[in-house]
């Protein structure tokens, strides 16, 4: 055999190499970030286009949003604990931490739905002005992502009880926690740009 061609041992896990899957998920996250970046830019462009209607700062309830923010931040911590437990092969701990994450996430979505219902009840709907169109689209896109994460967690509970801490489940958990932390970071952006700056 010459130097330029060597016979390699055949990699039998050619197709489901865990690192490739997590890498692919990172790429997904990055392109999703571009989606949010566009929505943030869109909100910034229209951030004072009230068309003579309701202004953002009259309807922003900062303490309420602060509670939402902390719910999501704490859910990120518990999601981190789920990963720590996964590393130490503690199935029960993983499950418990993920359940706490799920409940906190659900509470976040509940509060957001309440906020939207409250706004709509007061006549502040997406068609009022471009500002409110942009507001609802940006915040709701994040919310829909969180709901997707919750559905994913529900599937994850079934996966965990069926396949325990299998290799596939470890990859799934790695991607799920990436997704959840990503949503947390995006929410920090939403909280800052939409609510903190908006309340000024």
């Amino acid at each position, binding site marked *: *055999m*010459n*130097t*330029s*061609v*060597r*016979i*390699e*041992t*055949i*990699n*039998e*896990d*050619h*197709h*489901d*190499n865990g*690192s*490739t*899957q997590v*890498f*692919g998920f990172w*790429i*997904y996250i*990055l*392109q*999703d970030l*571009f*989606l949010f*970046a*566009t*929505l943030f830019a*869109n909100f910034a*462009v*229209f951030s004072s*286009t*009230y*068309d003579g209607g309701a202004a953002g700062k009259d309807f922003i309830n900062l303490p309420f949003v602060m509670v939402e923010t902390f719910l999501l931040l704490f859910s990120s911590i518990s999601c981190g604990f789920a990963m720590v437990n996964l590393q130490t092969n503690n199935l029960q701990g993983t499950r418990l931490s993920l359940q706490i994450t799920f409940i906190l996430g659900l509470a976040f979505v509940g509060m957001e739905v309440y906020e939207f219902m409250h706004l709509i009840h007061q006549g502040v709907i*997406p*068609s*009022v*002005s*471009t*500002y409110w*169109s*942009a507001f*609802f*689209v940006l915040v709701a896109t994040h919310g829909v992502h969180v709901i997707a994460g919750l*559905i994913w967690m529900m*599937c994850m509970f*079934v*996966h965990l009880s069926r396949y325990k801490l299998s290799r*596939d489940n470890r990859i799934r958990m790695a991607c799920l926690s990436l997704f959840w932390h990503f949503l947390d970071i995006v929410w920090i952006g939403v909280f800052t740009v939409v609510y903190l700056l908006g309340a000024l």
Partner: protein
Amino acid sequence: MFGRFTDPTAEAFSALQHEPIVLYTVLTIMVLGILVFTVITLCGWWGTLWRNWITTVDHKRIGIMYVVLALVMLVRGFADALMMRLHQAMALGNESAGYLPPDHYDQIFTAHGVIMIFFMATPLLFGLFNYILPLQIGARDVAFPFLNNLGFWITFAGAVLINISLGVGNFGRVGWLAYPPLSELSGSPDTGVDYYLWSLQLSGIATTISAINFVATIIKMRVSGMTMMKLPVFCWTALVANVLILMIYPVLTVALALLIGDRYLGMHFFTNDGGGNPMVWINYVWIFGHPEVYVLVLPAFGILSEVVPTFSSKCLFGYTSMIWAILVILVLSFLVWAHHFFTMGGGISVNTFFSVATMVIAVPTGVKIFNWLFTMYKGRIRLEPPMLWCMGMIFTFVGGGLTGVMLSIAPADWQFHNSLFLVAHFHHTIIGGVVFAYLAGLVYWFPKAFGIKLNRALGIASFWCWFIGFYFSFFPLYILGLMGATRRLQHYIEPSWQPYFIIAMIGALIIALGILFTVLQLLLVVWYGIKHKGRLPVRENDPWGDTRTLEWSISSPPPPYNFAILPSVTTLDAYWHMKTEGTQCKPTRFSRIHMPSNTSAGFWVGILALILGFALVWHIWWLVAFSFIGVISVIILHSFIGDHCGYYLSAMEVQKTEDAFTAAYLKAGGKEI
């Protein structure tokens, strides 16, 4: 219950009732469909079709399906083009001149643009990526075989949805980028723009899925020893094009979603009232649209960088400068979007910036042109069809680039803006640059996929028809543009324009002849396939000779596992190196090979996505809910009951397959190794 079908303003079936052209087209498509269905049923091919194609996760088969989809869409899009050229050649006078009423004509130019970019060029590109990329980097498949299948079927759903608009309802009358406020409910109250929006959303999802897959494949699946600077140029361009896709498609998705918000939820992003601003849409779509041009043309550059060295029997001149030129284009392509609307009134500084940035982009492109010319310089050039396409591309694309520099001069652009000069320019770059190069790629890699070359005489005839036809159809448009003709004219009153439109029509007919020759080439191959009852014999690996990259080191068509033994790469142009050093291995000791299992999940998601899109267009909300839940359920079910383990090809089977190839290799005069 039936949504907008019961709403008379949506005119669900009015085109079928009042437009004989539409009626006959739909009838022809239905008859052809029934014919194909009957033939498949009578021959009992459904099982084969299901097992080998529809549910396949093999990148090579998915690649072929993408190319077939693209060629069918090429015929559809080109039929639109012919109709427009025919109409404009007759359209001197008033609204009733020509044979197309304004409403129908407007739908045709919209459909032509959308189909050609999103459902012809993109699938053709993805077909080539799918087939060639894993082979060039020495991989057994793409990183995520299931996602590959899923992406194809969602693309398919988008393509079907846009074609349904031919018979049921209308298509948009808004141009390929659907500028508001015309595309808002106030300007387009019926279903046309909704078909546009939802088919593009489907195509966008599929494109994103595939781009993630290709980037992961190139980064993570390269064979050992193939560092980034030993990567074939086609793979480099594929990487950059897919990174571009990942950065720009989210912008398109958001823009489309916002317009959907306007049309479905009464929002006010791009409307004239409520604070909306149509110019914001125009910025979004061009932040997407300009890099999209490079998504299409960079792989075209990659194809040339593979074909030109092969048929010049030399290595590519300036590999490193080629790679850096690609990367510079990646960055610059994001800095030029506003040159599409210098007339917006952005002011001197804005226009100057985008004008200069646009001119600068000609520099890295020029680097590439010179690299190809220097590759050919003192090379032993063989004028095989792929090389003809490449030389035609270099010649034509330089011209298109030069008129691009003319358009980039902001003050001059105020004259050229939205004139036929612009239409001629972008067809000059897209046909001369993208289409010629893709066809070069198709002809070049065809024998790899099927074992035989396309007929040479027909190929040469096809090239000359396209080449000459292109100049006949678009140079009159340059002149017309300078004479003041704007784009998208349903009729005109200037008699001196008509001769130019007639010449353009003759050019389009010459191109049609070129397409006909390509179809004949393909029919000959279909005949070859029928003669061998669908089991194509294994042929020699290197039919062109002097090829340089790994895909040519394995049999044509390649075995399902691609490489029986993964090669190890030490230099650029790995296969060339193996040939000159005589280090092709004749392996005898094989191990079993792991293969992914087929899955039908992608197909079902595609079908449900098609229903979802259709229901959204027609406001059939119960069907929207049903199909949306269906899509999510199929994905979740796939994660639970899908076969993720795959299976093994035994070492004995691999040995048998490889023996067949060795026999073919020796028969073709290959040296015993």
